[in-house]
């Protein structure tokens, strides 16, 4: 691989863009494709381009057969994102674990005493209100959003903004009773039951989590299970 292809790819990734690297496995010839990018020494026919487009839509790296032998189509999507509302104790642990799991983490808390650099090294912090920050972050289908403050004044506007986004996961900390009350408030704000059902509450898989670390594990496990539900479903279909 040429270093300029690699540098270009890393720059596109930092800019939040999807790129595709096509490699002819026989010769090692390569072509990097992306927004305004076509870099490399490989020439592709129309059928090959169509197959590459399908791989991009599926967001899945794969080999395809072509007249010039097997091509490896490597799809690189921007990093997964986790937006945490509430710079609370659990958020400190959750942010660290999520970074290890490959997420770009942003913490939102209008209370600047909570959202301090000292408490959250290496994480993006926003100290405005979530209903202002969240839409600006444009949560997409590779974004998970979790609210942790327990305070309706902060959590509710965040959840309303989250429900208007394409986020693949929305979770809210709080007991069943808290969650039921939350449902009533959001219904009053015009969100129907089906929309409210997008919120995972109480947040996280039920693994009896007690400590902040354990709660962070349960939340990250639930986010993973939703992210990878297609893999779980494929396995279940195969078994059936």
């Amino acid at each position, binding site marked *: 691989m040429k*270093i300029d292809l*690699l*540098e270009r*790819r890393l720059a596109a990734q930092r800019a939040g863009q999807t790129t595709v690297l096509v490699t002819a496995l026989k*010769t090692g010839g390569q072509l990097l494709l992306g927004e305004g990018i076509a870099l490399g020494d490989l020439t592709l026919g129309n059928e090959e381009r169509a197959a590459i487009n399908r791989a991009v839509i599926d967001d899945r790296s*794969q080999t395809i057969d072509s007249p010039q032998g097997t091509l*490896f189509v*490597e799809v690189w999507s921007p990093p997964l994102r986790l937006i945490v509302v509430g710079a609370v104790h659990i958020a400190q642990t959750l942010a660290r674990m999520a970074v290890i799991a*490959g997420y770009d983490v942003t913490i939102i808390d209008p209370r600047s005493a909570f959202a301090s650099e000292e408490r959250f090294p290496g994480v993006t912090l926003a100290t405005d209100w979530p209903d202002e920050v969240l839409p600006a972050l444009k949560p997409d289908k590779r974004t998970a959003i979790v609210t942790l403050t327990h305070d309706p004044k902060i959590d509710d506007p965040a959840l309303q903004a989250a429900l208007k986004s394409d986020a693949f996961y929305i979770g809210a900390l709080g007991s069943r009773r808290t969650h039921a009350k939350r449902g009533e408030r959001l219904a009053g704000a015009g969100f129907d039951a089906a929309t409210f059902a997008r919120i995972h509450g109480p947040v996280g898989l039920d693994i009896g989590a007690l400590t902040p670390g354990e709660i962070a594990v349960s939340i990250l496990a639930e986010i993973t299970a939703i992210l990878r539900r297609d893999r779980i479903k494929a396995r279940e279909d195969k078994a059936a």
Partner: protein
Amino acid sequence: MSDTDQILSEAADWHRSGRGVALATVVLTWGSSPRPVGSKLAVDDQGRFIGSVSGGCVEGAVVENALETIRTGAPKLLDFGVTDEQAWDVGLACGGKVQIFVERLS
């Protein structure tokens, strides 16, 4: 930053500092191979490596091949699997098969 980004950033740093570097990428898997397609291993000319293409089973053999690719510049396509005599030698005992593409960063 994702796993792959970290490995590739580091590989780019190695290259900039004048070290010979090869990248190994899982391009095809069958059965219960431990690392998915796209998993990467970066190797330098001293045999130092980061990342993973098999969870430990075939890394040693991949590093050896990567060192040769760094020397010759010629890419390689490596097959490891249980039906392959050589695979047993290097210990892919997890029951899967993987195909790994090795290329020099130049």
